[in-house]
């Protein structure tokens, strides 16, 4: 199966900014289930970029724009050939690294339902069953809605409001799995359709890492998922981080389109 991905974001500044530095995580990772046949990253002219790999194996594209500017756009296009079922291998870390709770995957307030379900899961001493149950539970009990949580929300926000986006669904699943001592990592990337980038979870089944998507209540098998970045939680995978000189508000527009083309 071949897919075509176009992704673009436009950052508009209310006032001109300068000395802009950015770090993008936007390059598809290498995986054992797809091959990247073509990948192009397009930026405005006269931007020098430099690629480096972080500890998680994510590609960071670092760049600078020194002159005054009012907008910043990044566009990528990729053609990817999926030739096998979704799976991945251990990265450079011991799998135990993905058992430690992070700030975003920790609940700091007493929420009865959360604790009850945690205990309920402990009855089953079976990784596959636990993953299925937790995935299903999150899909059934939480509503997909943007604007309730933000990029820095911990699972307490989704637990209290019962609403969130893919990032929150993924964090919640990670919290349940790590609590059961199942190594779980956060993955950002793209799925077919239009809209925004996506996030899901990988867990270690004792041999390999498999994908699970609580937003779609899906154990990922043959559906095309393009992996961009992975880490302990969303903070390890942010698509764009920037710093600049100038007092300015920012407005972000994102365009994504991923389709199967043969």
């Amino acid at each position, binding site marked *: 199966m071949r897919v075509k991905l176009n992704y673009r974001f436009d950052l508009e500044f209310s006032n001109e900014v300068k000395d802009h530095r950015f770090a993008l995580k936007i390059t598809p990772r290498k995986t054992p289930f797809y091959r990247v046949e073509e990948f192009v990253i397009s930026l405005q002219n006269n931007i020098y970029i430099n690629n480096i790999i*972080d*500890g998680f194996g994510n590609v960071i594209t*670092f760049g600078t724009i020194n002159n005054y500017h009012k907008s910043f756009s990044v566009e990528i296009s990729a053609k990817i050939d999926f030739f096998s079922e979704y799976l991945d291998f251990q990265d450079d870390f011991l799998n135990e690294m993905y058992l*430690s709770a992070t700030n975003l995957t920790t609940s700091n307030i007493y929420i009865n339902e959360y604790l009850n379900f945690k205990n309920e899961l402990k009855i089953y001493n079976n990784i596959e069953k636990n993953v299925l149950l937790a995935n299903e539970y999150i899909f059934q009990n939480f509503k997909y809605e943007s604007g309730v949580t933000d990029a820095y929300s911990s699972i307490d926000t989704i637990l209290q409001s019962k609403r969130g986006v893919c990032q929150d669904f993924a964090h919640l699943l990670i919290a349940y799995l790590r609590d059961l001592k199942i190594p779980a990592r956060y993955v950002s990337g793209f799925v077919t359709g239009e809209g925004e980038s996506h996030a899901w979870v990988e867990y270690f089944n004792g041999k390999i890492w498999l994908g699970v998507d609580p937003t779609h209540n899906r154990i990922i098998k043959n559906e095309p998922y393009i992996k961009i970045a992975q880490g302990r939680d969303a903070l390890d995978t942010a698509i764009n981080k*920037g*710093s600049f000189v100038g007092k300015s508000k920012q407005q972000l527009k994102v365009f994504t389109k991923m389709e199967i083309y043969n």
Partner: protein
Amino acid sequence: MTEKNPQLEQFFQIFNKLDKNRIADLKEFTNNFGINFNLFKDGSFIERSFPFDVIPRIIPKDEFKVLERGLQQRVKALNIFLNDIYSDQKIIKDKIIPAEFVFSSKAYRPEFHGVKTSRSIRTHISGIDLVKNSANNRWTILEDNLRVPSGASYPLSIRQAYRKVYPEIFEQMNVEKIRYYPQKLAEMMNYVSTGGINVVLTPGRYNSAFYEHAYLAKQTDAILAVGSDLEVRDDKLYLKSFDGKREKVGAMYRRLDDDFLDPLEFKPDSMIGVAGLSNVYRSGNIALINSIGNGIADDKGIYYFVPKMIKYYLNEEPIIDNAPTYLPYFENDMKYVLENIEKLVIKDVAEAGGYGVLFGYKMSAVQLSDLKEVIKREPRRFIAQELIEFYDVECFMNGEIVPRKSDLRCYVAYGEEIYVWTNGLTRYALEAGNYLVNSSQGGGFKDTWIVE
């Protein structure tokens, strides 16, 4: 109990004959030269001079030789540990340290896994805190500081004044010279440099140790810079000058914590770092002094494992003791801690500078039982230590000699060789009976003399 040695007696014999008014001359020096320590208290800055006591802490040279070997051994092992943790993690695979202790630490930086540092050095400057145990007469390690240890400039500058005010003492006593420290720092920076100039990066003049940043930059011939003087281009770091020229930086003694170093990687609102610096570090194009992620090695929970590290990496017995420490994480230790909490010191592993330290004997029954509950709930968060009875040092306060609790921070520079500075920062508590000597808790300092 106050520590005595023949060298200290010799000091008093000379000192007692001299005019006490000279003490005022020495104090005036500390005021004139701006030896200040800024305290951040109740939401505002208090700039105050760092209290100084005229009676030096004297350590006999043969005793210091043992300390020297012990500290070289310890820093060597800690450096190997950091290289291991950011590459193969053998010490976890071999089950010397439980994985959880490393991975759950906030100071662990997996995003920098695999980064190779120049000449495999990460602990370029260590500040190791010790006390001398009065029960067994042995030095004991309290804490390793491998991130941005401060304080070296205070004894450096006071010694100059001391020699001027009390030349007779230095004529009659064989005190080890200390002026080599800046030279050793400069040599170390040159040794690890990736090519280019040396820079000291300071958060600016509101930082509690700004005096020291400026002083050390001057003494080591490095350029003192703030974040906005520096710029990342491609994968290298440059110092900008006003005429638009750029000079490549090869080694940077950064006096900022990891969290503030690079807004693209750490706290996004940090205004004092350099955007993109972490990628220069990843590319191997800068020697950062000290390296990023060192906090995993001076974590209070990891402290427990340092003697094991020394055996594991060096196949040697530790020369200097750790304080007897318990980890509630281990079942037996938890039991001991809960049963003996009233005589233990409980430390929160995430806190530093004397914050988050609880003395069991000072707490009420209700407080103790609350603390026990927290320990049971979050065993990884705490360590417990026996209260060590350490020697008092003699201080000259309000015209009389009084005993005060004190510790010693030894500085170790790791370049071509591992150099233990023949001085250190002796800190003492201002009030009688107080065990907390940290500068941020209002302690004072003394000069430290290594005497033949």
